[in-house]
Structure formats: C-alpha cells, structure tokens
C-alpha cells in the first residue's frame, strides 16, 4: 500500500471514530444515569416513585408526581404564550417584513438565543417576580412567572425553525396561488402555512424540549414548592429544579432518587425527540423531496 493510500485509510478510520463518538457518549450517559438512579426504583418502587405525591427526603418520601405535573404545567403555559407569538413572528419574517426590518429581527433572535439562561432567570427574579406580585398578588414566585421567562427563552427556537420551514415551501406554490388572484394573506393562510405545518410542529416540539429541560431560570422564579398548583399564581417545582436544588447535599437513597428524577426527565425528552423526528420526516415527504 502506498503512503498515500495508507494515509487516506487512516484518516477515514479516524474520522469515523469522531463520528460515532456522540453515540458512545450517549450510551455512557444513559449507563451512568441509570446505574445511579436504578436503586430508587428497586427500593421505592417505580409506580410509587412516579405517582407518589409526597417528596420529603427527610421522611424517606420520594414521589415525583407533583414535579412531573409542575414541569408539564409550566411548559404548557409557556407554549400557550410562545406558539402564537413565534408563529406570527416567523410568518412575518419569512413573508411580510421588509428587508430592513428583517435585518434587525434576525440578529435580535440570534441574540435572544444566546443570552445565558441564568441571566434570564436573574431578570425574572428582579423584574418579573415583583411585577407579578404587584399585579396579581401572592409572592410572585409562581408558575406564571416561570412560564413567562420560558416563553421568552423558547421564542428564538420556535421562530427560527418555523421560519426555515416556511422558507422551504417551494416558491411555485406561492406564485401559483398569487396568480390565481389570492391575496397575500389568503396565500399565507391557505397555501404556505399548511405546507409548512410539519416543520412548524417540529419547531414547537423542539421549543417544548427546551422548556422541559430548562433548569436554573425556572428555579429562580417558580417558588419550587412540591405541590399540584391550583392556579397559575401558585408556586411549583419542576423536575429539573428538583435535581439542581438538592443534589448539593444529597446522599444515599436521596442521591439515587435525584438520578431517578433525571431518568424520568430523560425519558420525557426522548419521547419529544422521537415525535419531533417523526414530523421532521413527514415534512420531507410533504415537500416532495424538495427539502434542502
């Protein structure tokens, strides 16, 4: 084998190793999270752990159900606010905004995506918590406050992925509709948006994933009480928060229970990812192989 060919061979194998690195890492991550988290399922029971209403490590109570509900409530409420705003904004960017304004919006969204989550949390703590307290009563540390912060944090994800989906709708569709005498708004409503729906759903699920996984920004404003909220002004605790709040001093079963919380979180995220992939795949089909 000439030195050329040997070099080519080695390079290809080396690159292959870098490519499968992420798979190896995921396997190690799963292995370690399960290794540390599995004992809680054995000792406390899977169902007791997932559906238990009480979380009191000092009394050996390890039910995470209130936090599952907490995570879902915060996420749901933030999607309720973020989805309309970001889809409107994505359509605005893709179809309506004049070039000059788009030149402001694009970096705005990139910067919003780049602000550290702790800074968002800090902003929420200093500005939103007092605002909610004064406007709506209570302590201000609430599901609502956390949802508002998450809304802002997931805006860039939903906007940019939706915008891509809207932009990848073939130009011909739009021209055909306009040529038939449809107005711009009719064209968007009846042609462009429906064609982009799978991509928009992917965007929403990705935003949802980010909301479920967000930790510190939520801790800083949500109040972190382990209870099922009665109103959006009640404090709640998310799964992520539970880990971050207690890991610093947890030992023994408590330590395992926090890894167990991570397993629940991990499974929720994986479900979302698989759903997102399903729609992403559909999107390719819908646009007839024209995707990218």
């Amino acid at each position, binding site marked *: 084998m000439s030195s*050329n060919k040997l070099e080519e061979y080695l390079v290809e194998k080396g690159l292959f190793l*870098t490519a499968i690195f992420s798979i190896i890492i995921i396997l*190690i991550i799963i292995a370690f999270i399960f*290794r540390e988290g599995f004992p809680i399922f054995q000792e406390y029971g899977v169902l007791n752990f997932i559906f238990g209403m009480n979380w009191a490590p000092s009394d050996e109570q390890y039910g995470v159900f209130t936090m599952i509900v907490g995570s879902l409530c915060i996420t749901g409420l933030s999607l309720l606010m973020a989805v309309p705003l970001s889809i409107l904004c994505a359509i605005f960017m893709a179809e309506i905004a004049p070039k000059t304004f788009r030149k402001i919006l694009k970096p*705005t969204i990139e910067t919003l995506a780049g602000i550290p989550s702790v800074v968002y949390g800090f902003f929420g703590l200093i*500005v939103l918590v007092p605002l909610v307290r004064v406007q709506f009563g209570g302590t201000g540390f609430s599901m609502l406050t956390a949802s508002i912060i998450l809304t802002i944090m997931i805006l860039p994800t939903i906007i940019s992925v939706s915008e891509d989906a809207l932009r990848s709708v073939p130009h011909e569709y739009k021209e055909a509709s306009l040529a038939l005498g449809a107005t711009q708004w009719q064209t968007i409503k009846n042609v462009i948006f429906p064609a982009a729906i799978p991509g928009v759903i992917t965007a929403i699920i990705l935003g949802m994933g980010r909301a479920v996984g967000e930790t510190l920004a939520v801790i800083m404003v949500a109040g972190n009480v382990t209870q099922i909220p009665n109103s959006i002004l009640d404090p709640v605790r998310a799964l992520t928060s539970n880990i971050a709040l207690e*890991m610093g001093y947890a030992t023994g079963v408590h330590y395992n229970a926090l890894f167990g919380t991570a397993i629940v979180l991990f499974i929720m*995220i994986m479900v979302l990812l698989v759903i997102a992939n399903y729609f992403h795949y559909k999107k390719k089909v819908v646009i007839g192989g024209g995707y990218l």
Partner: protein
Amino acid sequence: MQTVFWASGIITVIILLVIIGYILIKGLPAINLEFLLAEPIDSGESGGIAPMIVSSIYVTLVAGIVAAPLGVGAAVYLAEYAGENKVVKLIRFGAETLASIPSIVFGLFGLSFFVIFLGMGWSLFAGGLVLALMALPTIFQVAEVSIEAVPRSYREGSLALGATKWETIYRVVLPAAIPGITTGVILGLARAISEAAAIMFVVGSALSMPISIFDPGRPLPLHLYVLATEGISMENAFGTAAVMVILILIITVVTNTLVERYQKKMMGR
C-alpha cells in the same frame, strides 16, 4: 392582519431591548477595572470577579479544544465519506439526542462519571469536558451543513488535478467551509460559556483564583446564580450579568465580522 404581524415582530425586538437594556443599565455602574481584576470578598458581597472570568476562560478553552475537532471530524465523515445508511442515521440521531438532553442531566452525568468514576475530582477540567459534550452537537450540525454547501465543482477540480480525497477535503473543502464551521464552533462555545446547571456539581464552585485547569473554580454564570439566589449582593449580580451579556455580544459581533471579512476575501468581492 398586517398589524398583528408587525406587532409580533416589534414585540420580539422590544423583549430583547428591555432585557439587555435593563441588565446593562443596572449592571454597567458596577463594572470597573477593580471589579474585573480583583478577587471576591465575603463570598462575592464585595470585591471583583477575576477568578470567575478565569474559570470561564478555562472551561471554555477545554470545551473548545475537545469539542471542535470531534464535531468537525464527525461532520467531515458524514458529509464526505459516509453514504446514507443505518450507521449514519444513528449518528445523526445521536447528535440530536445529545443536543436535547437537559443541561442538569449533563450535570449529574459529569458528577457521576468525570468527578467520581474517573476520579477527576471537582475541577474546571471536568467542567470543560461536560461543556464539550454539550457544545459538540451544535458544532457538528452547523459544520456538516456548511461542508455540504461547498460546491461539488470545487471537489472535482481538486481531484482532477491529482489531489487525493483527504487533500481535497483538507486544502479545498474545509477552507471553503471555514466561515460556517467557525460560526458553529462559536455557537457551541457560546452555549458552553453561558451554562451553569451542567457544571454546578462538577467544577466545585470555589471562589479562589484557579491556577491550573485541574483546580476547582466558579465560572461566571454559576457565580451569578449563587449571588442572586443566595441574595449575597444584587449589585455584584448585576455587574456579573452585564459582563456576561457584553461578552456574548462581543463574541457575536466579532465572529460575524471576521466571517464576513473572510468570505469577502475568499470570494474576491
């Protein structure tokens, strides 16, 4: 209807301006040379944030040095060598999974694997490795897109001159894809430099100046989190937040300018 669309765009811009404006207005007065160069006193109640800046630089460097070659290598493999097969699909799914694992789960993994299992102890090095894993999918995904965007004609031109495949990649494809790759690396590292949850149980949260990367430390976002949640000093918290926001803005602007300049030079405009 037009009004609603315009409103949605304007609201988005206003949100950004309010957040950044508020942080900067409240934080800038706290920033001076002493704040940047001094060590914190009384857990950060007064004094500066120099050790935190150094910690942030250390973890980001480690993350970059580890993640950039891995991410770019994987991108090159998928774009240039692999066809469409099961392994490739698995690799892509792997990267997506890595991208969507919550940061706190990375934190637990870092604690149980790097700190305890591999015996690294609480250190900036271990924190950097965790952040490398978080930055990896971003670098990989952006790099792959920009490598695939390099026209096939460049590759053919090079091969026809008798260059080998690797020479073609190394001398023609990668230089042409550098602006995109750089953007990917910076995006990945921006994520790393902003991250607190993933490293809070890994870096040890020490307040003193780290001498080597194997010392424990406390990067800026973690410091901000501690200052704010433990109510130590709001003034210094604002200062720290402002430093981070400025840092992120500088990184974004500088990268964009460099990338644009390189592209102009390359394309002869």
